[in-house]
């Protein structure tokens, strides 16, 4: 028997750790940079939710498409979007992945299959259905993923997309990242149908709930769901129960959260810590492996911020580019 108990090789596990660590450091650094006032617009941070994006995206291929949310940095990084280009985009610089014109909520990189973060709640779901319909016609086994938060899951676009995906048997997976709050409103007050699995079954598709802070739980469940979609089994819904370390947006005073809540979840439900503990306890990765990775990530983020700060802003003429696309 192999000494590695996991269904992933040592190198794959190290890559996964690197992705999760990159998301964490990226978000922690954006949190700091935003407070300095150098970043225009709003940012919504994904820290604490890394296991969901990484656990799902580990199963995806380049031609699989994802439609993200306003909290999309983690999805972008896990799907392989260039970190320096993302940071520059958030700073509104010309070297950003969208030329500095999208910002945090509109990062997109179609070459990587990332159809965009989205400032409109629930707007990603119809896009994912469109991508899934195209994938179905191309018949190469590609799929699409729609990420949505618990708040946006109440939007009509999302519910209509569930219906459409079901009647057309589309290769699409709807991932509800349930972090318990729609902005400042607890999910208990905002969602009439308390179980997303119930909601999925109402549209004739299976739904599964997993602990979104456990990488291996997400990875295994997502693997089965994605395989099903690739093989023609149709759409399904995956609810990842998770937590966010920061407020809804940067600057959110979070008065709606219980005293000590964030400290408690950072101490007890940190997906990165639990991943590290699991793989080192199994002896597959060492603490030194992880620390070396941490150093690489820190220097990458440092470089990303430095180059973003040094980069130029778009000029007036750039307003007229990227408006229409010729097919």
């Amino acid at each position, binding site marked *: *028997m192999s000494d590695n*108990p*996991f*269904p992933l090789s040592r190198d794959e596990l190290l890559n996964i750790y690197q992705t999760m660590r990159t998301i964490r450091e990226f978000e922690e650094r954006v949190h700091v940079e935003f407070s300095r006032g150098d970043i225009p617009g709003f940012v919504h941070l994904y820290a604490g939710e890394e296991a969901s994006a990484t656990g799902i995206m580990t199963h995806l291929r380049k031609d699989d498409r994802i439609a993200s949310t306003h909290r999309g940095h983690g999805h972008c990084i896990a799907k392989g979007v260039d970190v320096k280009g993302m940071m520059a985009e958030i700073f509104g610089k010309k070297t950003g992945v969208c030329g500095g014109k999208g910002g945090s909520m509109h990062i997109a990189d179609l070459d990587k299959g990332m159809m965009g973060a989205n400032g409109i709640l629930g707007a990603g779901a119809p896009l994912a259905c469109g991508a899934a319909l195209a994938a179905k016609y191309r018949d190469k086994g590609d799929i699409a993923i729609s990420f949505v938060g618990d708040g946006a899951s109440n939007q009509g676009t999302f519910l209509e997309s569930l219906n459409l995906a079901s009647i057309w048997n589309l290769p699409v997976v709807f991932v509800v990242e349930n972090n318990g709050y729609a902005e400042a409103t607890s*999910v*208990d007050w905002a969602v009439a*149908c*308390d*179980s997303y*699995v*119930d909601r999925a*079954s109402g549209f004739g598709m*299976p*739904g*599964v*709930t*997993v602990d979104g802070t456990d990488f*291996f*739980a997400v*990875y*295994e*469940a997502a693997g*089965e*769901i994605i395989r*099903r979609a690739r093989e023609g089994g149709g759409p*399904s819904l995956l*609810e990842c*129960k998770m937590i966010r370390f920061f407020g809804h947006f940067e600057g959110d005073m979070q008065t709606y959260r219980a005293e000590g809540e964030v400290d408690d979840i950072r101490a007890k439900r940190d997906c990165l810590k639990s991943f590290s503990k*699991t793989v080192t306890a*199994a002896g597959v990765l060492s603490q030194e492996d992880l620390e070396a990775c941490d150093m690489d990530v820190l220097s990458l983020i440092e470089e990303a911020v430095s180059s973003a700060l040094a980069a130029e802003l778009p000029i007036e003429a750039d307003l007229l580019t990227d408006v229409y696309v010729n097919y």
Partner: protein
Amino acid sequence: MFDFRFVVWTLCTLTIKCKPSPVNLSSKQHSLSINSSTISVGIVANPVSARDIRRVIANATSLQVSDRANIVMCVLAAVRACGVKRVLMMPENGGIRSLLKRGLQREQKLCDNRFPELEMTDTQISGTVDDTFAATQAMVDSGVKAIVVLGGDGTHRAVAKVCGQVPIAGISTGTNNAFPEHREPTITGLAVGLAATGRIPESVAFTLNKLLCVKINDGERSDIALVDVVVSTERYIGARALWRTDNLREIFVTFADPEVIGMSAIAGLLEPVSRNDFGGLHVLLDDPEVTENLLQVPIAPGLISTVGVQSWQQLEPGIPFTLRQSSGIIALDGERELEFGPEDTVQVTLYEKAFRTVNVGACMRHTGQHRLLVGAPLELLAT
């Protein structure tokens, strides 16, 4: 023939006003000791049972939260009809509580007194199994006479870990449901209400059950299972539910029912053992690719899988069995829970008479035979 139209049968604080009946009930009367303090029962309703990956890899159903709330309403109405005044329930944020609140408010407007007072235990909500442990403990501490459990095998296991001598009554809302019997919840509620109020003798109302205990390194880590302990060569917990059969190597069961699905069905299809039989069964399994002894097993709803069988033997109570497999994971009642390696010593022991359940069938037979529900509505026992 005695005319019962005017008979009032008073038994402690219990009063049953009998309706006209052609049968002489006097011969069925018996003396029951009824506790005059507040009679209360507990309810643990898991909002997230039946939500795992078996909805995708098999065709498992997912009972809706509103259905779960309706089941609780049925139980509440039934126990109240038996005289139970107060019910303690586990709080959760999965939707059952809020639907119940709405339902009870609606019922209050429509009809008086059909439901008991419903209180939530003063316990934290974390959305994990810890909620079940804490709420069950609070119910035990407050002296409930029985606990109704809505969930699958895992939920019942969690309650059984804490409930001590308080009997539990299971209602299937999980995936495999080998432990809780399938039954209309109103009937379970009636049986619990009649048993909790002492109208049915304990020797009839309650059954003692077997249980499996797993100990790693002499108790360094330990846990229990109500139905099955399965050893797999898989070595990580992941999404918890167990369904791949080629990695299975050993299974220990408290009972082996050929009419259930899940891991215990492997044993049930080889040598049935009832819940009341002495001992359990221990089955050694093999990779189906390397053995000719194959068995087709309903391992999950709609999923019939091939299992390789090596041998099986009776599992005697009280004798620890050391695992043959040197490393892997241990699934308890269908969920991967414990990892172990070559450095660990793992022992599995079957215990008889480990915890109590409400014998719903026996309760209702007794109720019919003794005409306990004949007459006017039962009065509240309480206060």
